[in-house]
């Protein structure tokens, strides 16, 4: 790559870094909250994309992983008095384990069956949250203690930096994963499973790994959500949540990291605007989804990648 190109790239990243670092100075608390919400959904979409975009499996367990992460972090803080960084670690681990667990039946069950089973799993988890009220505080939900940083409570700005750092870590780790033989294995399995096996790819193991990593990332996003909202209840993690994740990933574009971010930013702002009218959010989202399905099957990310080849995401690093 020519030196001037590299220099321009480095400059762009630096500017982005500075802009992101200084962002809180220019926004009020409410907007900051919305931005924080966007960050959470960016991470959740990133995780979802691994299984539905890269691996290509129709697994609708994202809301379940999200909820597991949120409950894990929330309960760690509420019942075990863990500080939030540890609680986040717990949510990531819980998500990863759940992902691995779901990944195993995913080996035997394909296509629509997988979609149905994973939806059933999500509903089963919600039932668990409601009925295991000794642990989970039941149907009413609970509010974990607010996160603190060296004794002082974390305000929206503080949360912003934490979320940004976690998102950056998540993106970096996932990029490393996808731009390696592991990411290539996922896509190979999606494209042509027999061919992938003939090259030595351990298909079953790769699938479970994809699910586990997806669960880890989405669980982590759920942990952030617990910090964001201050309230965790079973109702949050049902079909409506699943639609949100699904719409973000579809509109953003399957198999596109940039798409996930765009989709999350675009769609997280919307509920705030549509809040006052019942059903409008669902109508707008579903119409958007249909438009995408008809005209832009590869979503925004795909559209951009077609126009700007430099943005096209590779599955290797040089």
């Amino acid at each position, binding site marked *: 790559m020519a030196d001037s190109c590299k220099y321009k790239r480095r400059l762009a990243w630096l500017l982005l870094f500075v802009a992101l670092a200084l962002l809180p100075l220019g926004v009020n608390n409410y907007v900051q909250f919305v931005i924080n919400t966007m960050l959470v959904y960016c991470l959740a979409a990133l995780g979802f994309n691994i299984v539905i975009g890269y691996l290509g499996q129709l697994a609708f367990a994202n809301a379940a992983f999200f909820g597991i992460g949120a409950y894990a972090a929330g309960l760690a803080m509420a019942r075990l008095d863990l500080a939030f960084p540890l609680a986040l670690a717990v949510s990531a681990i819980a998500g990863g384990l759940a992902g691995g667990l779901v990944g195993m*039946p995913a080996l035997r069950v394909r296509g629509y069956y997988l*979609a149905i089973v994973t939806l059933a799993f999500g509903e089963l988890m919600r039932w668990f949250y409601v009925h295991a009220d000794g642990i989970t505080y039941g149907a009413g939900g609970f509010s974990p203690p607010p996160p603190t940083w060296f004794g002082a409570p974390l305000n929206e700005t503080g949360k912003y930096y934490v979320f940004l750092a976690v998102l950056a870590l998540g993106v970096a780790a996932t990029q490393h994963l996808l731009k390696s033989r592991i990411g290539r294995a996922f896509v190979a399995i999606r494209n042509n499973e027999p061919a992938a096996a003939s090259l030595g790819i351990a298909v079953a193991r790769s699938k479970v790994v994809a699910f586990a990593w997806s669960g880890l990332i989405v669980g982590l996003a759920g942990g952030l959500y617990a910090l964001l909202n201050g309230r965790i209840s079973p109702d949050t993690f049902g079909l409506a949540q699943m639609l949100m994740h699904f719409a973000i990933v579809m509109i953003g574009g399957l198999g596109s990291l940039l798409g996930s971010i765009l989709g999350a930013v675009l769609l997280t702002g919307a509920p705030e605007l549509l809040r006052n009218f*019942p059903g409008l959010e669902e109508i707008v989202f*579903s*119409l958007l989804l*249909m438009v995408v399905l*008809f005209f832009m099957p590869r979503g925004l990310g795909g559209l951009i990648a077609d126009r700007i080849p430099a943005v096209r995401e590779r599955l290797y690093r040089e």
Partner: protein
Amino acid sequence: MLAQLIVSGIAVGCVYALIALGMTILFRSTTVVNFCHGEFFMLGAFAVLVPLQTLGWSYGWCLVFSLGLLFAVGMAVERGLMRPLQSAPHISLAMMTVALSYLFKGISRFFYGREVVALPPLMAGDPVFFGEVVLLPQDMLIMGLVLLVVVAFFVFFQKTEIGKVVEAASQTPRGAFLSGINVPLLRNLMWGVGAAMGALAGILIAPNTLVYPDMGGHMLVRGFAAMTLGGFGSLPGAVVGGIVLGVFENLAGGYLSSALVDITAYLVIIIVLLIRPQGLLGWRRDRG
């Protein structure tokens, strides 16, 4: 108590069977799992409610209206949204039905908000006693109707010429097309029939469950569970699966815990798909 649980289970299971039958018809004609079937169910109930309450029509006419409307909606969905996506990856069709499901839910939520409305039963009256077992007239109507539908289907598919043609067309669409059968029209009609069946199920059970925008979700899962249990794609399987599911739910609720009624369907799905994916009556197919 056992007898009561079983009989009530069969009654509710018949509704599940009706839903599963509708979903199976759609699945066989377009190989799409219809994630918005629960919404046909919900729209059917609303479509009776609206003319009944706001226009003052008689129940009979409301019923006709609802079934006719949902038949039309089914055909419109197939023609306008499913058919253009025929050549797209299969996943897009499923996603379209998901999007539709949310659209319908959003629309009804827009008009009805948080209201939960009661729909009077098709057949009112006092409960009837058969020895120790109690049945509402509505329950008996449901069982009778489902029996009628099942018999009609059997006669249609096994005995009539048209039925056999439809059956053949669903198994090998290309072959059917080459034989001159109008496959697109058939698909279109099948969607109308499937949607209407969903609507009928909604109308039948609405008196029990009350009418509200989210009522479809629960039924969708029960439909999946019935289809999975009976064997995906099998018409008799849908009926058997539905009835067995209804009985399971009631037995679990009665003997183990009332909390289990809600999740019996989910557990059935998970267990069946992991242990015997072809269900009770299905054969082993590599459906993906």
